[in-house]
């Protein structure tokens, strides 16, 4: 379990991260969202022990980043927003070096390397030089490096930046698989629709402060108390509009071409009444669907784009 408690980082008079707190369980894939300069990377760097927090702390499986950084380092895999690869070595040599650095016993290293290469679909590139790999493959190699010591927490800073759609899709599948393996994965990214696809938890940060934290739908719902539905009717007309306007929870009904757009704020029981009223009124209900508010809408609504 990862507990981040009131993390704060100051650079001189500037507060880059201000009291960020959250908690993640094994298997959680956490999308860390924020504009450039919002404090995502600084937070990730503090959790990875690269930066010492000014105050607050992060605790991973009982180990405190401030008191026991070595134990934290053994339990994390950190992938920064750049590759940091040694170009003049082969793929297996690169992984072997990091496996040794993470104290993987020499007799186990070959097996570990084979496993992570298989997981990241790089087995065929085992003997290729790192510099000969495509950008997507290099990104997967970085992820493989993060996995050689089987860490409990993966910190992935902008892992999809610069990747083509196919490579992004492959990376997404890989991250989902890692979540299934019980690892805590923290992913910072700007590509919000993708994060919404595979993250079960997201946090939105701006000017160093966490503005929202929770499940994607939970955040969307909390940000959007008024929900909108579109009803497609066989016989659209004023009757349908007046019928709906009489229902409790319905705030506004408007006709858009052959459909009705209904703005609603209420319970699920009240929501069920909408469909019932349209069926009972004989308007020929063909479909009723909720308009989705996506993470990007919520992000834009919550944030102003300002930085410290």
């Amino acid at each position: 379990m990862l507990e981040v408690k009131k993390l704060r980082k100051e650079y001189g008079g500037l507060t880059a991260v201000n009291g960020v707190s959250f908690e993640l369980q094994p298997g959680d894939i956490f999308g860390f969202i924020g504009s450039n300069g919002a404090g995502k990377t600084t937070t990730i760097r503090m959790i990875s022990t690269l930066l010492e927090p000014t105050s607050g702390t992060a605790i991973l499986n009982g180990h405190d980043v401030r008191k026991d950084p070595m134990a934290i380092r053994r339990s994390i895999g950190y992938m920064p927003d750049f590759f940091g690869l040694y170009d003049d070595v082969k793929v297996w040599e690169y992984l072997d070096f990091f496996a040794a650095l993470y104290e993987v016993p020499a007799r186990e290293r070959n097996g570990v390397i084979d496993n992570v290469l298989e997981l990241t679909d790089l087995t065929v590139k085992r003997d290729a030089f790192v510099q000969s790999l495509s950008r997507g493959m290099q990104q997967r190699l970085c992820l493989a490096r993060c996995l050689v010591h089987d860490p409990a927490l993966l910190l992935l800073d902008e892992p999809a930046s610069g990747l083509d759609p196919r490579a992004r899709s492959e990376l997404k599948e890989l991250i989902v698989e890692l979540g299934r393996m019980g690892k805590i994965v923290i992913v910072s990214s700007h590509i919000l629709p993708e994060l919404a696809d595979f993250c079960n938890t997201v946090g939105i940060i701006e000017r160093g402060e966490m503005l929202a934290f929770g499940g994607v739908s939970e955040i969307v719902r909390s940000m959007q108390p008024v929900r909108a539905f579109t009803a497609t009717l066989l016989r659209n007309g004023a009757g349908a509009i007046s019928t709906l306007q009489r229902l409790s929870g319905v705030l506004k009904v408007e006709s858009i071409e052959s459909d009705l757009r209904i703005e609603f704020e209420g319970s699920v029981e009240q929501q069920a009444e909408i469909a019932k009223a349209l069926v009972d009124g004989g308007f020929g209900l063909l479909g009723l669907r909720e308009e989705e508010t996506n993470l990007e809408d919520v992000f834009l609504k919550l944030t102003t784009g300002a930085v410290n």
Partner: protein
Amino acid sequence: MMQHYRRLVKENPMKIEISRFQRRYFSASAPMANRVMVLLVLTTYIGLCMLVLVFGEAVTPNGIILIQTTLFCAFGPMMLHGAVAGERERRSWELLLVAPVTKGQIVAGKFIGAMALLAAGAVAMLVPVVLSTFYQKQVDVTNLLIKEIVSISFCMLICSWTIFISSRVIRPLMALGVTLGTEFVFLGVVPSFAWSLAGSDPISRIFILYLNPFDVLQKGSGALEAFSNNSDFYGIPQSCVYLILTILFLIYAEKTLHFADNDVKFLPKRSEDAGS
């Protein structure tokens, strides 16, 4: 003391640097520039052995140790100039910092890696040294041994100096330039000035030239014999000074690793650059 030895040497995972050095210079996957360098060293080495065999008495063990020291003074910085600066340049430095190793272990690992190559080189150079002793009428083995120790300890000093410089800059080429530049100043320019400034006072010269091992290494070949005959100051005591300086530079290298490090590098210049 034993605890430091265990942490920094015996159980240091950064000892993997030894095999990295091997791969970088001697494996089939070594970069072309490194292969050329190894080829040059091998050619020089074979040439030296041939010289000893062909010219016999004309090639003294002293001369070979001088060549060895010169080679090590050049190749030490070439091997180590990127020890820290290179990691910074290719941005792999952070990956080392988040690994379960201390900065001391990183520095020690880099140094141990270079020392392994240096040791291999020193052993290889023993062949022409031993060969040349067969052609000499009188060989002072103790004296030769002391010179080997002076040569190797000085090379260790050069290596630690290179790591120290490398830990203070971001560009490896800058580290190489500074290291070779300071070598040139301290081994070339300073002794030249010292000869003219110190006049005939041998004590002044001894102290001024103390850090220049070529003085004591030439003893026996005649050139500086007049000022090198104070054996109380040279030889083993000199090696001890080199070793102490080696340790000091390594300690300071570790202490200054934060220079140009992330805390500083990512410190925003303007407030709007803050954060990530």
